[in-house]
């Protein structure tokens, strides 16, 4: 408790105006920023994968399996920041056992479990089943047994079985798209439904979350595709990369429009909270919202992608621009989550004052553990890619 007081006293001195005494401790910190960032990447990567299976976008086929594994890796890690954040992680299972049906958060467990079990794991299993059987046949030792276990000891690779797999993948993807929307839309709803907080309370919140999720997912897969392809010393499939950049561009346009609509709507309505929100945007959130989220994370990459598309620049330059744009987009979406979660707590519900957020270096809510949580999905993905190589050349020809 003394440590907490030690942390809170300097904050008290930096408060401007009046905030309620209980608001000096900022309640949702960096871990709650990371959580929607991770689930957004899950939903985004999955929706990219579904472009191949449902909408038959052949160009992005090389990224299909990578997208699936990315979504799975991030989904596995997604609950960890929440578990680390809550006061009693040992009681977290109560959400499944005694859920409060009126709570948006209580539905988390069910949406998460549904998405993990009924969508991602099933789709990965059906898509890889034949390949895993083929790999196991040519392997020895523990890896053979691991692959046999992953295939759940199925051995049939007949035409009929493979066509069933394909049909199953298609159906799961069809179910998966609304599920992905649900997974991330619900995260947006958790914030959007808090009527006490005018920065969050917006019917657009779930939709803005969703489109920013698609943006971040496509950008992440684009980055991972480029890095892994170059790392394996293979040639980057330029039509695929161009298509990814195009979809990234479309998603960004929708996302940007929605955010702009939300912004204009707030200013036009000018409700009671407009004064304090204006102070927030022009002061404490100026760098992270206007400079990083909007200019660096949205306008600059949008402009860059438009320019390379119009000017038809050489492939090497296009690769560089796409890569840098996708990096900026990642930074932008992370700050979007930051601006929602942290920004929504920097002003008092009395609308009379602003507080600050201080992040420590160590500790569960610190910078170091946050970096670990952000790196962890990539480690999981590395492990999964060793077990279930998502590279196009490892896929058996007849199954493609």
């Amino acid at each position: 408790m003394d440590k907490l007081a030690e942390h809170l006293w300097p904050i008290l001195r930096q408060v401007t105006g009046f905030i309620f005494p209980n608001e000096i401790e900022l309640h949702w910190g960096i871990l709650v920023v990371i959580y929607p960032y991770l689930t957004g990447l899950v939903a985004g990567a999955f929706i990219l994968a579904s472009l191949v299976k449902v909408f038959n976008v052949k160009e992005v086929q090389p990224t299909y399996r990578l997208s699936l594994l990315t979504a799975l890796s991030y989904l596995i890690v997604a609950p960890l920041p929440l578990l680390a954040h809550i006061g009693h992680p040992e009681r977290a299972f109560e959400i499944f056992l005694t859920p409060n049906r009126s709570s948006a958060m209580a539905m988390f467990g069910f949406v998460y479990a549904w998405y993990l079990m009924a969508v991602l794991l099933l789709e990965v299993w059906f898509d890889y089943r034949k390949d895993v059987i083929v790999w196991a046949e040519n392997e020895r030792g523990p890896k053979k047994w691991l692959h046999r276990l992953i295939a759940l000891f199925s051995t049939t690779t007949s035409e009929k079985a493979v066509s069933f797999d394909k049909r199953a993948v298609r159906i799961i993807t069809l179910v998966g798209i609304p599920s992905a929307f649900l997974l991330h839309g619900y995260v947006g709803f958790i914030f959007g439904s808090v009527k006490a907080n005018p920065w969050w309370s917006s019917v657009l919140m779930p939709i803005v979350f969703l489109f920013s999720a698609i943006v971040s997912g496509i950008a992440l897969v684009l980055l991972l595709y480029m890095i892994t392809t170059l790392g394996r010393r293979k040639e980057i499939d330029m039509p695929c990369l161009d298509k990814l950049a195009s979809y990234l561009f479309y998603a960004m346009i929708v996302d940007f429009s929605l955010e702009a609509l939300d912004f204009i709507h707030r200013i036009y309505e000018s409700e009671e909270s407009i004064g304090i929100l204006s102070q927030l945007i022009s002061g404490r959130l100026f760098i992270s919202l206007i400079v990083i989220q909007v200019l660096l994370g949205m306008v600059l990459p949008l402009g860059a992608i438009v320019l390379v598309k119009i000017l038809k620049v050489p492939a090497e330059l296009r690769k560089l621009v796409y890569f840098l744009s996708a990096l900026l987009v990642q930074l932008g979406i992370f700050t979007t989550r930051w601006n929602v979660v942290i920004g929504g707590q920097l002003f008092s519900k009395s609308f009379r004052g602003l507080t600050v957020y201080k992040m420590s270096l160590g500790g569960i809510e610190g910078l170091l553990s946050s970096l670990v949580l952000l790196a962890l999905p990539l480690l999981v993905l590395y492990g999964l890619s060793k077990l279930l190589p998502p590279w196009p050349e490892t896929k058996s020809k007849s199954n493609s």
Partner: protein
Amino acid sequence: MDETACQRREFLRQLLLSCFSLGGILAGKGTAGPAVSRSAEEYDPRSHSWGMGIAIDKCIGCGRCADACKKENDVPTGPFFFRTWIERYVILEGGEVVVDSPNGGLDGFKLQPQEKTVIRSFFVPKLCNQCDSPPCVQVCPVGATFKTRDGVILVDSKRCIGCRYCLQACPYGARFIDPRSRTAEKCTFCYHRIVKGLVPACVEVCPSQARIFGETKGGASPLARFMRMYKIGVLKPSLNTSPKVYYAGLDMEVR
């Protein structure tokens, strides 16, 4: 009439008044409305509906309520955790509003010299509004926060997972996380006292009877009388939370 006679008369008057008020306290019939103390087992929540009235013009900002609350309910010390606190509003010429609550008003308020002319100034005690439509209860993922039959919002600290969603959902900043238990905490209307027929500690100690505790329904409660006597306002009515803390003389600047 000479001065000595006048002083004597005043002394007798004070003595008589003191006897009356002492008698009232002994009989347990203070205007704040405590009935005779009884055991908690006899308490039937179905036959009560609790609320609080706060007469803003009577509050002198002494902070005794906040102090009593911390002591009665073992609220963590320091200026970051309050079940009840007092805000001072100073409205200056030109409409500028200065609000403060140093240490939740627990130590009282020091005179704050203002450069501009003060138009009006007052104190506002704050606490959980024990909403009839409580957003905190709605969002709690595990049902640890609940509404009792007598309308008080409580937290089961053995069930609370410490997710802090209720703190975000409360429009009044009435909740905090107790750093010792890592669970949500808030005003309970001193539930352990009201089941015994006592009034909450803050009401008990208020020297100016700015806080009135009682039944929101039924005819003859001190709160019902309070609500007949004054024009009443609640905090943030647009949020439709239906608070059961009623303010007499609520200023438009209070949120």
